[in-house]
Structure formats: C-alpha cells, structure tokens
C-alpha cells in the first residue's frame, strides 16, 4: 500500500518523532498565528497562545487519528488556548519572547468605525468570535469552519449569522465557499 509523505510523517510523529511533527505543523503556523491574533488582543499573547497550543498538540498527538485532518485539529487546540488565555486575565508569564517598551504590536485601527467593530468583536462570546475569525479573517470555507468547531456546516453558518447580526453586519445569504 502506498503511503503519502503526510501519512508517513503522521506515522513518524505518532511514533514520537518530534521533527516529523514539526514538519507537519510548520506550514500551519502562520494561519494558527492569524487565528490567535484574531482571537486575542495583542500579538504577544497570540505568540504565547500558538507556542502553548503546539506544545499541547505535540503532547497529545497520540490521540490524533491517522485519518483525521491536522489543520482543524490544530486550530481547535489554538482556539482553546486562546480561550484559556482570555480567562487567565491580563497578565501572563513571559516565556522568552520579549516585547520591550518601544516595540509596537500590530497596528490597531484608527478609523473609528473599525475601532468600534474591533471592540464589539472582542465583546462577542468566544464561540461567536471564533466562527467569524475562522470564516472572515482566515478565509476558511464553512465546511472547514465546521470541522474546526466540531459542528455541522449548517450550525456553523447559523452561528456566524447570529454573530454578524450582533455586530450589526447583517449578512445576505452566506455562501458555502
């Protein structure tokens, strides 16, 4: 039976090969970072969240099913880590990545409407913010969003619709792609 490179890497990673795991995960890190940026208020928190999420993914990689997709699995862990960070308050252990005074995080919107929307977005419940970030900031299809959230495509659309209504961005029909 022919085994793809990805399958071989998964097999090796499941056997404990850290390099194989990183080969699988590395291409997903930019998107994982964008997800964390969309969910958290600062870039440094996002970096922390991605590091912790990948660490946890590696630690629990034994539970990863060989036939499953890595991207939604990793994104789920990143999202959970973002939720954990939000719950843990505004202070965090600095884990080696320093943001000294003078270093500026990502530019925040200066347009008042964008700033208001940003604030409203962060006031949304975690699950609603997550569906919007996955769909409109990471540009995932609703099928991919649903797989990440572990819900049906219909439920993902419904959740997005409710979240958009809450932001007063009343949508027209939501497409599948």
């Amino acid at each position, binding site marked *: 039976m022919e085994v793809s490179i990805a399958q071989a890497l998964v097999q090796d990673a499941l056997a*404990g090969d*850290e390099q194989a795991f*990183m080969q699988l*995960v*590395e291409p997903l*890190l*930019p998107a994982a*970072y*964008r997800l964390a*940026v*969309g969910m958290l208020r600062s*870039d440094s928190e*996002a*970096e922390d969240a*991605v*590091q*912790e999420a*990948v*660490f946890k993914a*590696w*630690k*629990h990689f*034994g539970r990863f099913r060989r036939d499953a997709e890595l991207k939604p699995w990793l994104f789920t862990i990143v999202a*959970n880590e973002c*939720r*954990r960070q939000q*719950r*843990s*308050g505004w*202070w*965090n*252990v*600095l*884990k*080696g*990545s*320093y*943001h*000294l*005074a003078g270093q500026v995080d*990502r*530019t*925040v*919107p200066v*347009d008042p409407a*964008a*700033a208001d*929307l*940003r604030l409203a*977005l962060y006031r949304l419940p975690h699950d609603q913010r997550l569906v*919007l*970030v996955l769909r*409109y*900031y990471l*540009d995932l299809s609703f099928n991919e969003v649903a797989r990440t959230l572990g819900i049906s495509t219909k439920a993902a659309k419904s959740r997005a619709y409710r979240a958009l209504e809450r932001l007063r*961005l009343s*949508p*027209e029909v*939501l*497409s599948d792609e």
Partner: protein
Amino acid sequence: MNETQIRERLHDAIGEASYPPSLTHATKARLRQPAPERRPRALGLAAAFIALAVIAALMGPRLLGWHSTLPAGPRAAPQNTASPDIFASIPPGDFDAAGLTTATALVTKFNLEATNGQGKITLIGAYADPARIVLFLRTTLDTGGPNGPLPIQLSDDLGLINASSSGGGTGLTGEYFYSLDGGPRPGPDGLAHLTLTMRGMTPATFSLSLKVQPSVVITTVPRQFDLGSWKVTIDAAEITPSVIHIAALIDGASVSDTGPSTMSLVDASGPARSVAYSASVTVPKQQLTAANYKSTRINAQWLRSSSASTYQLRFTGGGGTQTVNFKVDAPDPSAMLPRKGEALGPKPTDFPEAKESLKLEGFLNTTITIGRPTACGSGTGPSGTIFAVAMWFEVDGTWYTLSFYTDPSVRQYGGPGTYTARAQLYAAPSQRLYDGIVQLTITEDAHRQGPNTGSVRGTLDRIGTTTQASNLSVSGTWTCVPGMALGPG
C-alpha cells in the same frame, strides 16, 4: 452586506498581522522544554497588588456596585470534621492527583452547587496553606475535553489571588482539582475568606472560610546570596503539610535565562516531584524595559515525602551554583487519614511471577522482565466484553502496577487481535501516575487453560503535576496465567 464586504470590515477591524519569523524557532524550542503542565498566568503578586490597589482606589464604588449584581452564593464555614468518610465523597485518587496524599485530614469537605443550563459545578473539598490552595470540584459541564478548563477564579478579602494555577482530571469523569500556586491571606479570625467566582453559573459565587494550614520556615536557606552574576533574594522557604515551597526573586536573570534547573530539589532517591514551577517578570508586560526585564520571580513547589528526608536545594545559573541541605520531618501522621482496606489487600509478592518483556521509557526507563500479574483474561460486564492484563512490577525497590484493558466502547473483545486499550500506571497502592490509550494485541487467549500472551505499544500521559516526566511509553510483550483470583473483574 455581502460576505466580501464583511470580510473587508473584519480585516480592517482586526488589522493585518505579519507572521513573526522568530515564532517558528520559539515554538520548536518550546517543544523541547520539559516544563510541567501549567496554566501560566502569573505576573507576580507585586504587580497584581499594585494593579488591584489602583483599580480599587479609582473604581471602588463602581466595583462594589458590580459585585452586588452577582447572585449571592452560599457561604460555607469550615467543617473541621475530616474523617475517613471523606473518601466517600472525595476519592483517594483525587488527593493523589492534587498532591495532597500527606494532608488528606486537612481537606475540608464542602457540598456547594452552582448550575447553568448546561450542567452544574459542585465544590466538594478545599485545602489551603501559605503556598497553595487546592479545590476539588465535580462537574457535569462539557469542558471541551477531559482536562478542559473550568470558568473559575479565586479571590480573598484582599482581592484576586494572582498566581499560576494548574488543574486537571483526577481520573474520574467530571472530577477535577484546581490548584492555585499561591496561598490565601487569612483574616483577623485566622481563616481565609475565599470567594470562588464561576462565570455563567448560578449562583455566580461560593463564599467559603478555610483554615490556612501552618508552614515551617526552612531556616538554613540564606535570605540573600550571589549566584554567579545573579543576586538571589529568597521570598519564601517553607515546608507546608503538602509541599516544600521556595519562592525567589532573581536579579540579573530574565525569564528565559531561568528554567527548572535554576532551582531544583533532590533527596536521596533523586529529584523531588515538582508540583508547581513558574517564572515570571515582576512588572506587567507593558511596563517591561531593558532594565527591569532582567528580574525574575520564581515560585517552585515540590511534593513532600511521606517519610522524613534530607533534601538538597540547588540553585544554578549566572555562572554559579549554590546548594543548601536541610531536613524535613515526616508529615504529621494525624494529617493523613487511613484509607479503608489499605493495609488489608494482598501484597505484590502474593501473586505468582510471570515472564515479561516490556520496555518502559520516560518516567521509568527500564525493561520489565518479571511481573506479578493481578488480572489476566477476558470477562463480561455491563459495558460489554473486555480483555484485561494488569501486573505488579518492581523498580529500584518501589512497586508499581501497570494495567491494560480493552475499551469496549471502541470494540468489544471477541478473541485474539489488536484492540484499543486503556493503560494506567499506579504507584502502590493507589496513586495513579500515568494514563493513556495503547494498542493491545492479544496473541493467545487460552481461556484459563494456559498462559495468555500478547504485546502492547503506546504512550501514557502524566496525571496532574505530581510527577516529572510528561509521558511514559510502553512497548513489548507480556504473558500472564489466569487463575482464580486473576479474572479481569
């Protein structure tokens, strides 16, 4: 508004993020850190005190108003009636997972419930000493996984208790412990008046009064000393009923300059088991400057031994090393409740030997060649038919049990083959250390007519934070002979 417009609006609102090139390297480095499973959220008590004082001064009346809108929760006074029946409401494994094996009698029993539409959280017990607070909780909420976080915060009369926390499942579904690596500040009555806030629950708070168990200062640890180019100031060096606690401020070291080896504890049998380790900056991140980022606060706790021990505390870093030796008495026997039947069960040597070839790596690095099986064979119960193998084995004078049983929810046992199985490692007699899912192959099932044989391969994860290695992998072959006392149950 169409989806393209929505997309543009959200992109504008969130802003564009460029991927930091250093993140890949930092993530790889993070994988190699043998850091304990923590929920790091500490900044340091100083920053929290300052922040809370400022907030309280500026917004006191508004905060009070906000608090008054929370549904009032039940207030529970300590019930200092700990007795062996506490194990009926809090299973022994919970104490072990939370690192309270030596202080079971000091855990106060509670029965406070909060609910929401999805389920309930019940506080079933609590413990406090100057180094830590441990809560035992039971929940029917879907927390997103066996160790998913619970939406809780803990404060006392002086405000939020800001310290790193850890927690996790204790092995039973819905059973949790939550450990805060900072002690409460007792009121004039000598009790800590704690408020447990649970977002989204009714009531939203539990109020409980808890005795803060006393600690003993380790006098041999110097208050201040130079460690190479670093200067170490000891904030706390104490022995509580459950842990050995050292807190230090290190000037000259950034957080990334430090690690678990900066402050380590060993006894005659090797490294002490870490319960908590956190390193944090001493000011909020936003206030970090090139000057103050080289100042790190370390809080470390190790499980104290159940017998008298001599320890060596070792500081390493800044180009220097400093060691301090000290003795710790055996825990107060009255702090430990007898566990029913603990001394009555059969000894490992009561079970006949069987030849094994099981390689363990991680927490234990050994090959089991002789085991003493305690379970062997198939059996049928309410959840279906399973095959179980369990055995005692001895490493360096310590007895452990390793068990495997097929998961009937994945596949009912139906004869030789490879099955998904639950694996657990216990330290005698009841301390569950590792748990995981493995592939168990039954090569021969003799149905009590001869030895059963097979192989196993998989990795177990650490339970709680009371052991150091995060994993234990197991691979190799096993044999066991079924007997009258060796059914799977």
